[in-house]
């Protein structure tokens, strides 16, 4: 059984809390990514599951057993490390069979399992090679094969692709997905690369400052982030954030207003809120017909263009003085907006443009707590005197 459960698990190093009251329930056969910035506690969490680190508080369950204080060998888990860690003096066969030889398996069984693992990771014909005769990707596959031969209930992978180049990383991602499909085993995968997490996992556990922020399928994390951190972390480029206030007419900020009925989303008038909108949900006015529920028009000036091939990132200045230095501690830049447009869009630097937002893709967060208040605004306030185009076009 590959169920993994963490109950109120914490890890303290002196005064530093690496993991704080972590509760996590992973189903058998699930591919879970622990994702977060460097130092957020994701590797410590994995090490506590592996048995490399003993939790300061809480309990770890694998299958139906409590394994909190058991050594790694008794947990039924196998781990693939970032540094690959192959024995340089052993050939591929010996490296793959190391764990089995350590557990005194008989020779025929070892050979059978090694050949099967080599077949799964497509290393047939390379079993006699030494690690220094192999590429980075092949060595990583040896490390994965070494984990496979043991037939573990749970695979733990701690940034296994971090040392590979971008192209190989993308290739190995596919390989890992194929492997998961083939083995149907629980995989817990640690990464700081949210693109890896988005593409491979069944669910993403977003961690920040040792605390679990959200655990949901990738698209739920993307479309309905639980808080400002998740909204900013998931998605590349990051979501645009603008600070403002809830008024009778909706969201009001210095440069952008979005109408909605505060009662409908249960936000009190006067609450300080942060509006979030992803770059792909900001449209040029020419593309208005693509937006079912557009916001008021926003006047802006293009600043820097970043052509990416399949899209262009356009940095928009909402004021003359707009500058990245105005970014506040929470990553909010109140007078800049990042927009993603198709590569054939006729747009130049320092050009006056009018943009609109897709209201159904607007997110609202409580500025103080960071918690999500609403994902998508459907309702409109029809009251007269609502701030609109005129207020915005003044900017």
């Amino acid at each position, binding site marked *: 059984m590959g169920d993994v459960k963490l109950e109120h698990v914490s890890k303290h190093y002196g005064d530093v809390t690496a993991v704080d009251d972590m509760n996590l329930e992973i189903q058998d056969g699930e591919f879970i990514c622990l994702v977060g910035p460097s130092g957020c506690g994701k590797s410590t969490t994995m090490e506590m599951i*592996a*048995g*490399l680190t003993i939790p300061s508080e809480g309990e770890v369950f694998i299958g139906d057993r409590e394994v909190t204080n058991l*050594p*790694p*060998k008794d947990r039924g*888990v*196998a*781990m693939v*490390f970032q540094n690959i*860690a192959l024995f340089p003096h052993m050939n591929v066969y010996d490296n793959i069979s*190391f*764990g089995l030889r*350590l557990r005194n398996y008989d020779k025929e069984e070892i050979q059978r399992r090694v050949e099967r693992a080599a077949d799964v990771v497509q290393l047939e014909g390379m079993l006699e090679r030494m690690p220094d005769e192999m590429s980075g990707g092949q060595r990583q596959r040896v490390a994965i094969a*070494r*984990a496979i031969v*043991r037939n573990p209930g749970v695979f*733990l992978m701690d940034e296994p692709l971090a040392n590979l180049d971008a192209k190989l990383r993308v290739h190995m991602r596919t390989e890992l997905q194929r492997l998961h499909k083939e083995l149907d085993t629980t995989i817990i995968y640690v990464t700081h690369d949210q693109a890896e997490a988005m593409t491979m996992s069944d669910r993403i556990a977003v961690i920040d400052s040792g605390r679990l922020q959200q655990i949901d399928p990738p698209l739920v994390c993307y479309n309905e982030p639980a808080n400002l951190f998740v909204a900013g972390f998931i998605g590349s480029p990051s979501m645009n954030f603008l600070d403002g206030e809830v008024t009778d007419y909706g969201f009001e900020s210095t440069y952008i207003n979005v109408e909605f009925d505060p009662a409908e989303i249960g936000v009190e008038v006067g609450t300080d809120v942060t509006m979030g909108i992803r770059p792909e949900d900001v449209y040029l006015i020419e593309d208005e017909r693509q937006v079912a529920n557009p916001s008021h028009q926003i006047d802006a000036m293009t600043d820097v263009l970043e052509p990416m091939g399949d899209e262009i990132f356009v940095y928009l200045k909402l004021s003359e003085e707009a500058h990245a230095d105005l970014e506040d501690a929470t990553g909010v830049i109140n007078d800049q907006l990042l927009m993603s447009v198709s590569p054939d869009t006729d747009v130049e630097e320092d050009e006056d443009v009018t943009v609109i937002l897709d209201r159904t893709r607007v997110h609202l967060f409580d500025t103080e707590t960071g918690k999500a208040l609403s994902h998508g605004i459907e309702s409109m306030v029809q009251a007269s005197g609502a701030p609109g185009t005129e207020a915005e076009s003044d900017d």
Partner: protein
Amino acid sequence: MDGAARTEHHTVELAQNRTKRPHDTHSIHTMVTELGLLYLGGMTVLFFFWAYGIVSFVLDVKNKFIPKGRQYLRGRRQLKEEQQREQERKEREEQLY
């Protein structure tokens, strides 16, 4: 030289010596005092540096050598502990291979 002449010569010598004595005595006194002072000064300087050396050495032992020795031992101990931790960690990691 006969006895009278010897006596006269002796008398003259005595008279000369008598006339010389105050000057010679003064000269001897001066020489002894300067040498003594030089000797005393030299000894004082030597004593100062000897004492300074001893005190400095004691203070160096107390403030420099003993702390450095302790630091070295502490470093060795920490290195040993670190190596032990790494070895244990490596062994635990190998259990996961």
